[in-house]
């Protein structure tokens, strides 16, 4: 089939940013048996639809945007039915062995006149399941960590203020929807489904890289914290499940299914991604290429990720806390011992503060390698640059006064590590960080360089600079006022002196004009003659 079926209220010029991620693909592989008949509701990334199209004998996709539907229809010519429109127009379909709605229910309804509530859509999905059928349902948490922690910019409906005015800020349907994982499970139980597992999805509601069963959050705290910088206190307070950016439930009609994985982790971006399951304190690799992954000078050995899950605080976590508390002695101590360790261990360029345990100074992730040796001082420069960039980009508190930019703080941290760095070393560290980040991520090196040079953005920097300049201006104006007051005083003094001089002169003139003076001059003239002419 090459044309999607139109069911009503199609959105002709609309495309949704789909939900996606390697852990979700892995979850689908775990949950949906090969050969199943599946209903896929809502926008899902192609790497998810590919997995489903491969496994299913019959796949029905429903999306609201016509461009999305057309793309799907063109991609899967056989055994895939693509329907476009508002989900409430679908009528009775099924039964299906599985219903997949990882994006949740909010983007199932379109710009038609009638907007069904969450509960009504849940009824429809549940009704489409065959006995024993399995439902995969996502729900974004409107109070999730992605909205609470600095530096975790999120997109999608109901997301940060910066999205206001964009397509993604399309208003959510009205009505009540579950607000906790417990309410979500209760809602499914009411519809005759038995929950097999409920996962918290981190760090992003629509692109999670870590899924952890909400009853086992504590056992997988390291994976959550690594994916979600700053999540440690939340997890330690026992709020990891309640504040997960999204919840994803696996539920079955009638019977309770087999045991699902406790935690799935997608580690690395793009070509570098390694998916593993965490179980019993260890890791089991699920999806890897054959042999080490390699690109340019960078390579990754997935086998290094198998084995026990590392625990403990990273140096970056402790340093962030020390910076927020302005605990300078602790910062000096941490930096000095870290720099000493880098010198002693023949440092890997991946021994950055976010990848080194604070106490043991062991690498958290040993899978990365670089094909040329890097001097310890350069590793330190890269690590400090990376740390400072994140600190400033996340807008965290730190002890350095206003006006100290990224370079100045990097310089200060080098000095606190007793490894003072010249501008060339700072620059080399910045370039190494930009290069490695460009290779491991998806952002080109030039954009990385811009971000590293201005981590807190031009506006913030300009505002700080303006504040400093304003203070300097005030200070100079005060000095100018003082100088002018001095000048005025001196002018006044001068005027007084001049007045006195004039008064004296006029007195003198008056004396000279007086009869007694003239008489005196006349009387003394003979004596002056006798002494000879004046001058």
């Amino acid at each position, binding site marked *: 089939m090459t044309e999607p079926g139109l069911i009503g209220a199609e959105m002709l010029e609309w495309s949704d940013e789909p939900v996606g991620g390697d852990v979700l693909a892995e979850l689908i592989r775990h949950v949906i048996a090969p050969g199943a008949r599946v209903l896929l509701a809502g926008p899902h990334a192609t790497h998810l639809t590919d997995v489903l199209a491969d496994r299913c004998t019959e796949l029905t996709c429903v999306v609201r945007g016509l461009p999305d539907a057309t793309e799907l229809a063109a991609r899967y010519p056989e055994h895939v039915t693509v329907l476009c429109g508002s989900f409430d127009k679908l009528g009775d379909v099924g039964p299906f062995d599985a219903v997949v709605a990882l994006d949740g229910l909010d983007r199932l309804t379109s710009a038609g006149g009638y907007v069904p509530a969450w509960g009504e859509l849940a009824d429809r999905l549940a009704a489409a399941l065959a006995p024993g059928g399995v439902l995969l349902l996502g729900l974004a948490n409107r109070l999730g960590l992605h909205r609470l922690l600095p530096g975790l910019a999120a997109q999608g409906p109901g997301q940060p203020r910066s999205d206001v005015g964009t397509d993604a800020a399309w208003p959510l349907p009205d009505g009540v929807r579950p607000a906790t994982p417990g309410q979500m499970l209760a809602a499914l139980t009411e519809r005759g489904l038995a929950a097999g597992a409920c996962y918290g999805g981190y760090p992003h509601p629509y692109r999670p890289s870590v899924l952890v069963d909400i009853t086992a959050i504590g056992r997988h705290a390291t994976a959550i914290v690594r994916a979600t910088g700053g999540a440690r206190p939340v997890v330690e307070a026992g709020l990891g499940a309640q504040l997960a950016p999204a919840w994803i439930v696996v539920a079955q009609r009638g019977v309770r299914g087999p045991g699902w994985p406790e935690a799935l982790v997608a580690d690395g971006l793009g070509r570098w991604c390694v998916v593993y399951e965490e179980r019993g304190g260890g890791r089991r690799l699920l999806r890897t290429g054959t042999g080490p992954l390699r690109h340019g000078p960078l390579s990754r050995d997935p086998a290094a990720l198998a084995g026990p899950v590392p625990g403990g605080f990273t140096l970056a976590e402790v340093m962030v806390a020390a910076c927020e508390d302005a605990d*300078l*002695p602790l910062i000096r101590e941490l930096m000095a011992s870290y720099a000493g360790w880098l010198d002693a261990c023949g440092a890997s360029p991946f021994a950055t503060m976010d990848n080194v345990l604070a106490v043991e100074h062991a690498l958290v992730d040993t899978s990365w390698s670089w094909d040329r040796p890097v001097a310890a001082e350069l590793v330190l420069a890269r690590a400090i640059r990376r740390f400072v960039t994140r600190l400033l980009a996340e807008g965290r508190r730190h002890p350095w*006064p*206003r*006006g100290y930019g990224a370079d100045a703080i990097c*310089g200060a941290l080098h000095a*606190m590590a007793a490894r003072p760095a010249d501008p060339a070393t700072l620059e080399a560290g910045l370039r190494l960080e930009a290069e490695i980040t460009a290779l491991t991520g998806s952002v080109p090196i030039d954009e990385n360089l811009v971000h590293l040079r201005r981590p807190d953005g031009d506006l913030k920097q300009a505002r700080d600079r303006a504040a400093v300049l304003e*203070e*300097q201006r005030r200070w100079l104006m005060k000095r100018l006022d003082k100088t002018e007051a001095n000048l005025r005083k001196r002018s006044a003094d001068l005027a007084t002196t001049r007045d006195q001089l004039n008064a004296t002169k006029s007195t003198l003139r008056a004396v000279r004009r007086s009869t007694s003076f003239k008489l005196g001059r006349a009387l003394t003239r003979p004596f002056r003659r006798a002494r000879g002419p004046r001058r």
Partner: protein
Amino acid sequence: MLARHCGLDDIRPPRIWGTVQHGWNHVHGFGFQHAVIDGFPKFVWSQAVLRRGWAAGMRDYYVIGAPWAYLLAMEPELLAQPREGTIWYPFHGFEGAMLDGAHERLIAEIKATEPGPVTVCLYWMEYREPSIRAKYEAAGFRVICHGYRGRKWKGTEPEFLYRQLAELRRHKRVAANRLTTAIFYGVLAGCEPAVYGDPMWLVGINPGYGDNGRVARLHPELVGVAPDPAVARAIAAEELGVDRLAGPAELRALFNWETPHD
């Protein structure tokens, strides 16, 4: 002092990009006439000053410890000698403030309290005032002055702190009528402290500094004829940021001494 710590010329030290706290007080670390510029970094002695300063609306502090603490760290043994008697610092007015107090009453109290010989260290203004100086000399005290404060970077006594250290290290006790910088310096230099006598309140001081009892209420443990020296030492170490000294490289980076501003 800081330039010497950084291995730079301490006779003509480079200019610091920012303001360094120069004396102890119970508020934000700066004098009430000192126009501290909001945008400039303020390098202060201790976390305690930072907290009090923050409460007084001051920002952009960075704790480096007191220059005195750097001096002691650099010169742990300099001029050490057998200790005897008391060095007494009558609380001084300064260029812009008037003192309201009776030196005679103070002299009588010192004589009644101090067991050994007494050296009185006067502020340069009082030292240059023969009538005040004569009162203390007449009481049999040795009268000294550590040096001229200087004005606009001219005439400042560069050896001031060294002279003060020399004097403190030859005395057993350090005393004053108010809790002042000199008491903290003396305690760190190994003297036993004492704070007693007519406190000679400054007239017309800025109300932002609180009432006259505030200093004593902040550290009551240090007030008295013979406070516990161990407690005093702990408080002095905290107030002077002894455990918060920055290394030479860190100071150079902070003060922008590598790439001078101008």
